[in-house]
């Protein structure tokens, strides 16, 4: 029996990059392959729109989610998570000219863009909701960056890795810069990124946890990471 791994088919470099033939490459893609191989699972990647990905898991259309999903309390109410397989700080980015930092006061009158149903969105609403003039929700992170470059939003929030990728791109380099790292907030920003699982699917959870530990130990994880990053993305224990 196949294990269906749900992911949102959208560009999120360097974790998810599509080529024209519909092949996906990227750090997370390789980690999926490594985990599945280690756990001896016959995995199949199934594209599901991000906003429907948890319902799809609950409805049995997929068996697990590996899509840079933050492990946080809100989600824990409905689904289960494996141990984290990476963790990076979350940063605030804005136009170079903007005077913005990570404090609520600096968000006064700003339009903040976040991808919907993400930890960033939860964080922004909890901490900046009172100050920002608007928190605009996008269906994909890519669209957030588009509108940041277009100048339609003032501030974006995302994990530092994907954010750096954007800042390296032509449009990102031209317009924007990082304005600081958000403090750790497990209830929204979570405790790292993990595999989303149906509650009660403990056998699968055990397998995945073992596989993550195993590839960390046998060097596979580091080998993959080295191809994409010059630091340890696992982010400490």
């Amino acid at each position: 029996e196949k294990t269906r791994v749900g992911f949102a088919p959208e560009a999120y470099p360097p974790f998810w990059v599509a080529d024209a033939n519909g092949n996906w490459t990227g750090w997370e893609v390789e980690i999926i392959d490594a985990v599945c191989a280690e756990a001896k699972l016959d995995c199949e990647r199934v594209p599901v729109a991000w906003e429907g990905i948890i319902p799809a898991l609950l409805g049995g259309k997929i068996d697990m989610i590996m899509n840079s999903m933050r492990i946080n309390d809100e989600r824990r109410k409905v689904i289960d998570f494996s141990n984290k397989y990476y963790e990076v700080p979350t940063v605030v980015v804005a136009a170079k000219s903007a005077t913005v930092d990570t404090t609520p006061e600096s968000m006064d009158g700003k339009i903040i863009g976040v991808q919907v149903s993400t930890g960033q969105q939860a964080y922004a609403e909890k901490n900046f909701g009172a100050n920002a003039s608007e928190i605009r929700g996008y269906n994909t992170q890519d669209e957030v960056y588009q509108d940041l470059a277009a100048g339609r939003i003032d501030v974006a929030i995302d994990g530092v890795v994907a954010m750096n990728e954007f800042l390296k791109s032509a449009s990102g380099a031209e317009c924007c810069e990082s304005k600081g790292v958000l403090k750790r907030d497990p209830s929204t920003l979570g405790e790292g990124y993990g595999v989303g699982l149906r509650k009660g699917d403990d056998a699968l959870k055990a397998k995945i946890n073992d596989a993550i530990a195993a590839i960390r130990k046998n060097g596979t994880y580091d080998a993959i990471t080295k191809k994409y990053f010059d630091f340890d993305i696992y982010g400490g224990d």
Partner: protein
Amino acid sequence: MIWSPAAGSIALLTTGGWGSAMLVGLARSLTIALGAFGLGLLIGIAGALGKLSGGAVTRQALDLYTTIVRSVPELVLILIVYFAGADLINGILTALGQAKIDFNGAIAGIVVLGVVQGAYSTEVIRGAILSVPRGQIEAAQAYGMSSWLALRRITLPAMLPFALPGLSNLWLIAMKDTALLAVLGFGELTQVTRQAAGTTKAYFTFFFAAGCMYLLATMISNLLSRRLEARATRGMAHV
């Protein structure tokens, strides 16, 4: 990212291989549209017959179906049918002791859009059947045809000229509605376009190119349906 002159845009389309990826996406869109249109046609014929000659309960149930589908946005219907449809089918399969099926990809798209199309088809075909002169069907009965034979040989071909304009409209709608599947994450033309645009950052170029592809498909469809109509109405006096 730079507002590229036409030549640059075309280069973008051809070099990264995204152009051909979009063609593949178009082919998938057309396949799904064709499947949905066909399924809708079957539902439409059955629905029309049910409305015209079914019992009171059948008729009202069908009315409910067409009313709901024709007033709830496709986007919402697609989500409902996608989730509920799969639950329903798998529920039935489990009850029958069968294995669950994968309600994903093209099949889901076809079923989802087909259910939507079916409601519109029902109305189009019902109207067309009502336009067939009563005598045509009576003559079929008078020559001993069974209802099934009369349906196949007389009613359906005779209503075709009346149904075709509506049906070709539905086909165009089916084609365009496949774009909505992008919201479910399906890999058809619109979804591929979104990926291409996201990857290359040439949003304008790719959305524009996709628009041209849909437009071309529409115009070719128009041409074909005009021919089909001419053929179907060849038995009608041209005034």
